[in-house]
């Protein structure tokens, strides 16, 4: 039984009234807060590439221009950060992970996304396929800004947003799950916002 905080009424109730779309413990913001560990990297597009790797080998690699030549999708989704803000109807542009994996044509059960700056995050393959994940490079009709993960970030909106790795440079295909950066520091291995899986054991 939680103790009642005498005199506490809450101020964000109206904003979170749309409970069908706002997971438990979240509040809606219209800002776009920034969360990242470490400095923002600035990789020039000429030296940028996206790779799918397996067992230390590069299975397939795309230059920036290669990536833009793949079928580009416009995506409108709600996003949920573990620090409790949610943002509704965010508009992105990118390439589906399905399209990338189809060109790589390899089997795997998990992926570990890797990024400029050394950040990693792990996901089951089932969560990045079937039209659930993208490599996004546009936001609100503009190029994705560096502080929000540009030139390109992973977009996996059905999981907490730390899974949508900023500055993503590739996916490592894995047979066995391997925790990523925040997952090693006590955050949940899977991160389903609807089950409020914020920390290990939730």
């Amino acid at each position, binding site marked *: 039984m939680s103790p009642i905080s*005498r005199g506490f009424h809450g101020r964000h*109730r109206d904003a979170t009234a749309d409970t069908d779309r706002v997971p438990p413990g979240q509040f809606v913001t219209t800002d776009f807060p*920034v969360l990242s560990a*470490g400095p923002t990297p600035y990789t020039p597009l000429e030296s940028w590439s996206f790779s799918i790797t397996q067992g230390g080998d590069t299975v397939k690699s795309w230059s920036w221009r290669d990536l833009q030549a793949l079928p580009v999708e416009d995506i409108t989704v709600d996003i949920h950060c573990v620090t409790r803000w949610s943002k509704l109807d965010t508009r992105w542009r990118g390439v589906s992970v399905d399209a990338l994996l189809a060109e790589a044509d390899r089997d795997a059960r998990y992926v570990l996304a890797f990024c400029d700056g050394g950040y990693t995050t792990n996901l089951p393959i089932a969560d990045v396929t079937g039209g659930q994940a993208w490599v996004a490079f546009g936001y609100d009709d503009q190029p994705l800004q560096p502080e929000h993960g540009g030139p390109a970030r992973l977009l996996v909106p059905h999981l907490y947003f730390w899974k949508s790795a900023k500055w993503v440079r590739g996916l490592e295909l894995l047979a066995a799950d391997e925790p990523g950066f925040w997952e090693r520091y006590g955050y949940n291995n899977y991160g389903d916002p609807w089950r409020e899986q914020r920390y*290990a*054991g939730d």
Partner: protein
Amino acid sequence: MAGTAVRGRLTWQVATVGAVVDETPAVRTIELDVPDWAGHRAGQHLDVRLTADDGYVAERSYSLASAPGEPVAITVERLPDGEVSPYLADDLRAGDEIEIRGPIGGYFVWPWQEIVSPLLLVAGGSGVVPFRSILRHRADLGSTTPTRLLYSARSLEDVIYRAELDVVRNGLEVIYTLTRQQPPSWPGRAGRVNDAMLREIAWLPSQRPIAYVCGPTAFVETVATGLVGLGYPADRVKTERFGGMGGG
């Protein structure tokens, strides 16, 4: 070490508010008596949950302000349009009960690898809170690690923990920069932290320093990018942004 990774479930528990200390007009430190606290590392945070009488709940994260081994304490800045911080900063009284869980986070912690690495702490506003934990821990350890704290605040009145920070300790230098208002004959710095100020104050990259930067997003972007520009390897610049993991 406790809290390096969280093993098992972090459960909510009821904490009783102990001493409440007003640090500045907008900032208050709240000591918490937590019956089952597993201990924490310097720089970690905890979650607070408030429950209204009709069952509405709101949760937020706050940096721990106390050193490992000390009673749990958080320091809260009242955000004008905040939901939880005004309650904590204005309404909470000694003896009240609130729910907490923690400690959380294993990235923005000190010591990090080599304890002897010169330490650079750069704080914007209430971003200084985790640094009180780190500096107290450093003192408790008897560490002589060369340490500089560059602390940006709006005015002298807005400096949190000033009495504590002004006490000279072994190998610790505190440099204030006041961005909006400086007292007459102010001996410290004035204006926002910029590349020129960082160049003067930051350890040389050749000294293999480790930097921790905590504050509002724009502040952290400026400082972290500036340090990388000075030659700091990106993996030796640890950041915590308000609104980010562990932000207040």
